[in-house]
């Protein structure tokens, strides 16, 4: 099963809705509109030839320069039987970061989506328990968004000169 056959099967089913076809380091990568993420993943799961039944990673990336679609949710899928990996991206707006949750399809997405919510603020619609997982519960901001300075500017107990402030 080569990247061409995967691309062909996907475009047969979804047509022009899938864009951004790339192959960085030989790994097929494509983008879909955010409403279709569950449908695309379900198709990749159920198809008898493309058996992408292992979700390796679910993460987000914040692109501050792409206005209107700043947060990208990235799914890494793996076909364990034929040893093929692909990457699937979904973009969403920062002001309304709602993405459908894939926990119904992949159980491992449960904790991974909680982590993505904790650090980027992506709201996964349909997640059974979307609360913070790695940070303290009282935190009211999303640390991995690229809008904060690296160090806390309000610190008074560290010597500014020695710490480059």
């Amino acid at each position, binding site marked *: 099963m080569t990247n061409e056959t995967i691309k062909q099967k996907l475009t047969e089913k979804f047509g022009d809705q899938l864009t951004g076809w790339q192959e960085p380091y030989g790994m097929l990568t494509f983008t879909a509109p955010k409403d279709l993420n569950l449908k695309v993943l379900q198709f990749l799961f159920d198809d008898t030839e493309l058996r992408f039944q292992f979700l390796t990673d679910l993460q987000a990336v914040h692109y501050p320069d792409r206005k209107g679609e700043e947060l990208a949710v990235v799914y890494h899928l793996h076909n364990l039987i034929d040893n093929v990996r692909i990457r699937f991206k979904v973009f969403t707006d920062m002001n309304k970061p709602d993405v459908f949750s894939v926990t119904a399809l992949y159980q491992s997405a449960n904790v991974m989506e909680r982590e993505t919510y904790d650090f980027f603020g992506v709201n996964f619609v349909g997640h059974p328990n979307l609360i913070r997982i*790695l*940070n*303290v519960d009282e*935190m009211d901001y999303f*640390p991995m968004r690229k809008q904060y300075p690296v*160090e*806390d500017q309000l*610190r008074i*107990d*560290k010597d500014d000169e020695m*710490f480059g402030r």
Partner: protein
Amino acid sequence: MSRPVQFNNHVKFEGIPEGYMGEGFMATNFEKVVSLARKNSIWPLPFATSCCGIEFMATAASHYDLARFGAERMSFSPRQCDLILVMGTIAKKMGPILRQVYLQMAEPRWVMAVGACASSGGIFDTYSVLQGIDQVIPVDVYVPGCPPRPEAILDGFMKIQDLVNAEGLRRRHSDQYKELLAGYGIQ
């Protein structure tokens, strides 16, 4: 045929306190005796979180041997230990847990912050790392280093021993100590 002992034959003996000796009795200062006993039998609780924990493992192993200072029994229960050795990075989420472990310790208790991360947050000046465990519990000895060498950890342990020796019996009931704990929100 037994060989004569070649190594470790300069064993240091801990002297007995001065006092009045007689036939079958000795009269001395109670504090001195109790301090002597306490300082040579400190049972530590290794609260090892990261890399400094590995250095602690090396300290407790046979080459650097922490046991020769009396720390033979590492108790992993706070209820039965004297000294908590906090070794490693403590995240803000771990802070309340560390505080809970400290509250479960019985008096007299000492705290040693091993390594840069436990003393001040170390190189991790971020949103998730507690900048020093003295934000949540009172600390007696700080051992700097990233990680500190086993010799440095032993030096810190010996400083704890000096503190135990000099402390006296009434410190834990004094007002100053109560004020110190109140500063941390501990009754």
